[in-house]
């Protein structure tokens, strides 16, 4: 038996009358990186948003180590150690890079925050150069770094990543993969949505496929390695 | 129809006033009028008929007033109209009332244009702007050595209905105002105005300002050490102004148009105050509270004279027959005729004498 961190069962989410998730169920194991795959509009972002409370599920449960998260407000879920890097990034455009990052650690004590800040700059040296610049003036990739950095600043237990590779150059994708490895080693659990299969399979341990609002398929990444063609056919068609 | 709105035991009267909005303090006039109706009704009515007021809000807004008038005339089908504060609203409904032909006694709005030139069915039952303006100017000039007069007012029809006739009167006497100032509603500081007045050194100031602005103006005059006498309108009274500013020193040189026979807390007004309080126990009494009652007295007088067989033409004729009616409340009598429908041609003034509000006929000359 693996140690389950997050357990999602029979999750239903809809926008108005439009049902997006219909009874999706899957588990996320402690310390792993699980990737959600699926076509555009299959409900991947919706899943992440439902976990962190941005959308209230109509039914079903989201349990973090036995604690029911479904129905809680986002800030409560955040307090349980769930952070998200959203697809639209949602930075504070007129605040500087440093302020954006520091705000990520606002819920924690300031002494540890200072250290996290140093770590973040270490991970993304480019941000150190840009620390006094308002984030709206950053390039797309730089903004993505801030978004990831800000989420890490809160020292999450579970990190939700919505397309972390979006807009990042190949080297940075590789760096993200390395960061994910480090985080896993530190005991952070990751639930990732990724269309960049290179990164998805490089960084993840397992994957889950979303289709028609359900988790239909999944498996070990290792088993699938090297067979992208088949995966693409399976998942997206 | 000539008998629309009357039954064997009732006469319905449309009473329009600003019951809402930022001029709603005027509607105290209509409250006073309706209290008077109720007193008459309690005394048995007139020839067995009770006066039934149908109240309508104008909010002092012309369009709303027209709607109110049309409603009263065409939907509620009242016999006659009495009331109306706010000149603009009254002027706006005039064409409608003229067309409809029912008797209308204007009981508060002062603009002369409502009743001049005379229309067959419109009667003015309060001192009009001209009467008030003349009273103000005459009082100002009755003070020995008044040479220089300044005017301070709001830029609205209400203020102009006082200040323009006063200007005209002064001009007749060969006097041009030395200074004309504006203080708009809602202004809470009169420094600029008072400093200009200090420079111009008028002997008397005519002030057409509402309650709050009057108090602010007087307060700032005091603050900057200006003690020129100020002649105010019937829109304010001495008692409440004193209450607002808090000390007699600030208001001791303030005079108001006071169209009544006695000061507000004087013995001859007490009966009217008691009457209003009987029917409207919570009503705070101000200058406005009594202003429409005189025209009510005139109406009752006319209705009584007609006898039980009432119609609109008879009422109009009976109102025109009223001459020199002492209403017991207005300082000047009411006289109506087919070619002069401004029934009240004069007004007294009030000021503090020995710290007590006193009705005056001229500078330092008490009324009667």
């Amino acid at each position: 038996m693996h140690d389950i961190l997050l357990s999602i069962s029979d999750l239903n989410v809809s926008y108005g009358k439009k049902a997006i998730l219909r009874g999706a169920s899957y588990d996320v194991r402690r310390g792993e990186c699980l990737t959600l795959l699926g076509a555009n509009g299959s409900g991947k972002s919706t899943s992440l948003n439902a976990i962190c409370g941005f959308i209230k599920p109509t039914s079903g449960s989201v349990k973090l180590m036995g604690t029911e998260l479904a129905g809680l407000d986002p800030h409560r879920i955040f307090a349980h150690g769930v952070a998200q890097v959203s697809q639209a990034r949602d930075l504070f455009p007129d605040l500087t890079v440093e302020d954006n990052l520091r705000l990520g650690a606002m819920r924690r004590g300031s002494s540890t925050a200072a250290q996290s800040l140093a770590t973040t700059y270490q991970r993304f040296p480019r941000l150190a150069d840009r620390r006094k610049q308002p984030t709206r003036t950053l390039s797309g990739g730089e903004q993505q770094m801030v978004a990831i950095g800000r989420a890490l600043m809160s020292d999450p237990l579970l990190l939700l990543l919505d397309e972390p590779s979006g807009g990042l150059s190949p080297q940075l994708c590789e760096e993200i993969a390395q960061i994910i490895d480090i985080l896993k080693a530190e005991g952070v659990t990751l639930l990732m949505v990724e269309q960049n299969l290179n990164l998805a399979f490089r960084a993840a341990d397992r994957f889950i496929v979303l289709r028609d609002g359900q988790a239909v398929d999944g498996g070990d990444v290792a088993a699938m390695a090297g067979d992208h063609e088949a995966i693409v056919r399976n998942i997206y068609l | 129809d000539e008998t629309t709105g009357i039954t064997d035991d009732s006469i319905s009267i449309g009473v329009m006033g600003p019951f809402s909005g930022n001029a709603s303090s005027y509607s105290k006039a209509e409250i006073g009028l309706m209290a008077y109706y109720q007193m008459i009704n309690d005394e048995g009515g007139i020839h067995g008929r009770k006066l039934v007021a149908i109240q309508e809000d104008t909010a002092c807004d012309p369009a709303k007033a027209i709607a109110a008038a049309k409603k009263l005339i065409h939907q509620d089908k009242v016999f006659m109209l009495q009331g109306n504060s706010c000149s603009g609203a009254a002027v706006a409904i005039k064409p409608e009332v003229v067309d409809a032909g029912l008797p209308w006694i204007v009981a508060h709005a002062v603009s002369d244009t409502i009743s001049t030139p005379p229309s067959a069915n419109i009667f003015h039952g309060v001192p009009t702007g001209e009467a008030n303006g003349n009273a103000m100017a005459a009082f100002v000039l009755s003070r020995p050595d008044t040479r220089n007069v300044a005017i301070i007012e709001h830029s609205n029809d209400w203020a102009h209905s006082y200040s323009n006739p006063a200007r005209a009167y002064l001009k007749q006497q060969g006097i041009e105002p030395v200074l004309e100032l504006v203080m708009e509603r809602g202004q809470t500081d009169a420094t600029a105005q008072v400093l200009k007045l200090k420079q111009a050194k008028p002997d008397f100031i005519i002030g057409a300002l509402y309650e709050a602005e009057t108090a602010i103006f007087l307060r700032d005059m005091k603050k900057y050490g200006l003690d020129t006498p100020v002649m105010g309108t019937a829109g304010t009274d001495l008692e409440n102004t004193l209450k607002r500013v808090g000390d007699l020193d600030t208001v001791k040189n303030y005079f108001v148009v006071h169209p009544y026979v006695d000061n507000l807390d004087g013995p001859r007004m007490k009966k009217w105050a008691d009457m209003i309080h009987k029917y409207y126990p919570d009503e705070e009494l101000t200058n406005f509270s009594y202003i429409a009652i005189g025209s009510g007295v005139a109406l009752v007088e006319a209705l009584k004279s007609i006898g039980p067989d009432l119609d609109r033409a008879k009422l109009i004729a009976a109102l025109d027959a009223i001459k020199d009616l002492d209403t017991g409340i207005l300082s000047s009598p009411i006289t109506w005729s087919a070619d002069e429908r401004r029934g009240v041609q004069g007004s007294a003034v009030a000021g503090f004498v020995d710290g007590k509000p006193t009705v005056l006929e001229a500078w330092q000359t008490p009324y009667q």
Partner: protein
Amino acid sequence: MTSLLTVDHLGVHFSGLKALDDVSFSLEAGQVRAVIGPNGAGKTTLFNAISGYVRPTHGSVRLNGAEIAHSSPHSISARGLRRTFQNGGLFPALTVLENVMTGLHMQTEGNFIQILFGLRQARQAERDAAAKARRLLKLMKMDQMADIPASELSGGQQRIVEIIRTVASEPPLLLLDEPAVGLSPIARAQMMEIIKRLSGENGVGILLIEHAVELVMAAADRILVMAAGMRIAEGTPAEIRNDKTVLEAYLGHA
């Protein structure tokens, strides 16, 4: 013969920072030119300078021989340049169809009077535009979504619609800023298909920023590599793949 687009010694400085430094190249009709480079290399800045959203500090941009370096965005786009935005430029309250139809605004006939009185010409033009927009949506399998507001699309779907809107008017010159971000592999392939078709069949000149190197290699005729605001290499995909500096600066891990 003048080129479709000629960029000459173009530079953009932000209070001391040289976001774009002396870049020159040209683009012919029917050509696909990719711009690649690390994050913050100045690629988007290059697009902004060409399309009039930032004022170049120096240099010139010519569209069909005419200088456009200091023109307003709409007048540049009115001359036939269309671009996408890296951070989303859809109209959320409009439906998918209406978003695409807005891309056809300039092609839709009907003057103010015809529109006001609802005359036949104007109404016919509307119908034609709607029909064309639907055809385009179908190409990317988005026709099912035509009548829902763009705000209700997923991230990837938004990107697809923005691209369709941008290419709808078949402009002579297209600037696509990371069009493939967030697209599923299948959608990516479809999009590349469309890009190739536009340049091949319709002779559209395309400037393409993209980090997905396999796409770039497959689609581009020529590649411009940038780093730190400067051009570091230029050539065919094959040349770039083997370029030492490029390998060091960018492709290292791809």
